């Protein structure tokens, strides 16, 4: 990973260098959002003892080949649909033995929104003591970039060549409906907020869910160096709302977007996956507004979605 200037060098500290969660020499593409996430996670976790469950996804490749591992914490690679159930077993035994270990699932959108949805839902319903982090690159990256139910409308993938027709699943709405103690979305472009949420989620008990918009230059057909900027544009435009939900009922919006047309246009223009699929700033606007109206309602703030 580059020393991303947008992070003010924060993800690279002496501590991170000595013992990064994601070691140098890993196989992630340059500019992969998951790499940034893992650096932030290391920073947030500090001295907490961690164990990680990773289902089939890009992160299952990240660790590299047996017997070396790019992950500096004990990790188990689960089957695609099983991250939250394997983590259930790990967390249960940690608890039986009075261990403070924080059990983390690091899963892609495919393993979260699609094949692992039932597993995730069940672990949330049982309120297992797990921190589930979904790094959402909006495609099946591992298998070469096919659509998932997290792929946004208008994004071309290798299985939706002319752009996906359907919108994204509302994952935080789904998780909030489980009344779990904590669910939040994370913008990697807002590092203070990211760190705060990671730390809060690491310390909280019960099922915690974090949704991270994870730039994927390979799948998004974008410049590796632009990843964080893309996240910032997604937040500014209102496309990616940054908020948290406590106990499934208390909604808190963390970053107020400017809903600028310019940001949304830029967001689309900087990624070739949106080229020639017919998706435009205007075509996205109604669904963004609809979602923000819903968010305002849930957060108890009756403010029009668009302020200008």
């Amino acid at each position, binding site marked *: 990973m580059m020393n991303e200037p947008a992070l003010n060098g924060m993800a690279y500290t002496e501590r991170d260098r000595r013992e990064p969660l994601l070691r140098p020499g890993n196989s992630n593409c340059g500019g992969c959002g998951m790499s940034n996430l893992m650096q932030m996670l290391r920073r947030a976790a500090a001295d907490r003892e961690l164990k990680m469950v990773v289902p089939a996804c890009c992160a299952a490749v990240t660790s590299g080949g047996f017997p070396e*591992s790019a992950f500096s914490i004990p990790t*188990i690679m689960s*089957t695609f649909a099983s991250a939250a159930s394997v983590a259930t077993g790990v967390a249960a035994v940690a608890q*039986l033995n009075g261990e403070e270990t924080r059990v983390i699932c690091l899963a892609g959108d495919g393993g979260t929104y699609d094949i692992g949805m039932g*597993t995730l839902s069940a672990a949330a319903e049982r309120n297992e003591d797990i921190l589930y982090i979904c790094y959402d690159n909006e495609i099946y990256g591992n298998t070469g970039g096919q659509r998932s139910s997290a792929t946004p409308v208008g994004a071309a993938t290798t299985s939706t060549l002319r752009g996906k027709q359907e919108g994204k699943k509302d994952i935080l709405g789904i998780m909030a409906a489980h009344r779990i103690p904590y669910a939040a979305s994370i913008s990697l472009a807002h590092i203070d907020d990211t760190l705060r949420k990671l730390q809060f989620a690491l310390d909280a008990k019960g099922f915690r869910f974090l949704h991270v918009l994870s730039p994927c230059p390979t799948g998004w057909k974008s410049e590796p160096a632009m990843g964080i900027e893309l996240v910032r544009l997604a937040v500014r435009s209102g496309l990616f709302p940054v908020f948290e939900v406590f106990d499934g009922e208390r909604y808190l919006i963390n970053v107020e977007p400017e809903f600028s047309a310019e940001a949304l246009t830029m967001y689309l223009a900087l990624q070739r996956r949106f080229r020639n699929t017919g998706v435009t700033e205007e075509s996205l606007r109604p669904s963004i507004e609809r979602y923000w109206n819903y968010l305002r309602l849930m957060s108890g703030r009756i403010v029009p979605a668009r302020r200008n």
Partner: protein
Amino acid sequence: MPVELISANHAAALAATLAGRANRTARGFCSGVYPITPSTECMEYLCGQEIEKGKVVRADSEHNAMGICIGASASGARSFTTTCSNGLAYMIENCVAAAGYRLPIVMSVANRTLGPPWNIWADHGDSLMMRDLGWLQLYSADNQEVFDTVLCAFKLAEDPRVMMPALTCMDGFILSHTMAQVEVPSQEQVDRFLPPTDIPQRLDKSAHTLGQMETPHQSVVHRMQHHQAMLTAQQVYAEIQDSFEEVFGRRPADPLVTYRAEDAETLIVSMGTLGVTAERVVDQLREQGQAVGSVRVRMFRPVLDGDLRKIFAGKKRIAVLDRDVSIGFGGVLWGEVRGFAEPATIVQNYMVGVGGGDVRPEHMLTLLAELEQSHESGAPQIVEVA
């Protein structure tokens, strides 16, 4: 030793409970469970137990029941689950994973026909689907055997020379729902028989990654190690029989249960409760002066080729009874064991009791009468026993 009147499902669950408690001084017991007929009563029983340093997670599916067992076992706990039929089919991806991580999880299967069309009755096709996955497989024929086999399976699976998951099978309903007397040992005895488990590859402090990518060469070596370890299971099982006898004062059944086989000219080979019926048939035919014997295959994986070869040596006829059909091939057991017979031996496959048909002595007598008349091995036959 106190005797309890319990079903085989409860016998399996009780054995697992005692085994689970026996690990309380180590990392405990954790299990993920999900109901399916006729294994349900096993998971229900487990859910009703108080297990010190133990947790039974009521999962949302068999796939995740095994996922939970994987997480538990990978954390060093003793782990057990139960399912069958479509539940096993649904679980199977994680069964592959459990074997790949070499986790000593024990699973009780009350064998049941796969569907749809739905059929809840006994058929070995479900557990035989797991044949090539690196799980030990043991089949029982009565409730005591089920109880003993589950205890032995933990010890076998957890032996450092073996270290892999184990399947303990019983015929659905025929055993799973039949009440019979079972000698139940005390917790102290089980503690002595099953010392705390140590799973060396478990996630601990060191930063290793379990189940990550490997090269073809590494996969070959891992398969080779797994295969070799499975082959040692027979020897390890013999040691386990000794220590079982030492602690509990009775000997658990052999991996191959032979009955009047030594001087027999004709052998019946089968698995599960078919073998018990076969032994009654052997008695009847012996009374009529026919030299018939029976071999009940309890240990299906690893395959006991050497012993089977010895038992089969010099036999005139072998009837292999399969409670399964490998469609387009024949019986799975037949396919496995026919090669261990000598070329001159007539080996005939009968698939009987498929889909849960009630195989009675008269059915076997008819088949054996037919076999006595034949002069060569015929094609496998699916036999109706309605």
